[in-house]
């Protein structure tokens, strides 16, 4: 068994693709029309094109997801986490692109992490991950 996909809740495909490809730098892997204006869009890291895919899940208006996202945002809790090689460089690059960080880079217990707003209603953690 292996982990092949993870998802972030979104409400607008174009805005989500713009942020996750244009700002974060992921690339589109699948974009399948599902009918009823639904699409199956997954993104991958250009550093790991065969690695886990990020599914843009259009469920942001679901009442459960809505309640979850409001509570997470209020407490500043990220919905998922992406690994970076150089957090300082990413923080500088993304801040320069106008990305809002709710937590600046912070070193705690061997982890170096920051939290950003994905402009799609989610907080995302970026982390320099120590080897296990």
């Amino acid at each position: 068994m292996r982990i092949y996909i993870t998802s972030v809740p979104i409400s607008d495909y174009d805005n989500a693709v713009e942020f996750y490809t244009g700002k974060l730098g992921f690339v589109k892997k699948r974009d399948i029309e599902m009918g009823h204006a639904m699409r199956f869009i997954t993104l991958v890291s250009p550093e790991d094109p065969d690695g886990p895919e990020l599914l843009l899940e259009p469920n942001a208006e679901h009442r459960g997801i809505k309640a979850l996202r409001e509570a997470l945002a209020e407490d500043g809790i990220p919905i998922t986490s992406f690994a970076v090689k150089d957090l300082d460089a990413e923080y500088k690059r993304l801040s320069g692109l106008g990305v809002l960080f709710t937590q600046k880079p912070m070193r705690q217990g061997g982890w170096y992490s920051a939290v950003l707003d994905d402009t799609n209603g989610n907080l995302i953690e970026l982390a320099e991950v120590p080897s296990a």
Partner: protein
Amino acid sequence: MFTCNTLVVDLIFKALADPTRRSILDELSKHDGQTLFELCQRLLFEHKVESSRQAISQHLDVLEAADLIRIKRQGRYKFHFINTEPLKTIQQRWSHKERS
């Protein structure tokens, strides 16, 4: 502003009487304007406070009631700031009078 309002003073002392709440103030005085998520991580790693986020949230309510922290909302986010103003009440109350 100097006040002798007993209720207000009680809230300040109650808030300061707990070591976790003092650690929260320590962390905010080092890095002001933190989300609950950031604060919990700093408390865990720097003060070995292993309380749940819910427990920390309740400590923050007590500190806010004493006006020792202030919450600023920015869109959907909540940031916590230290406010040392109420401590002046305590300091002024027992301030040492210089003898000539």
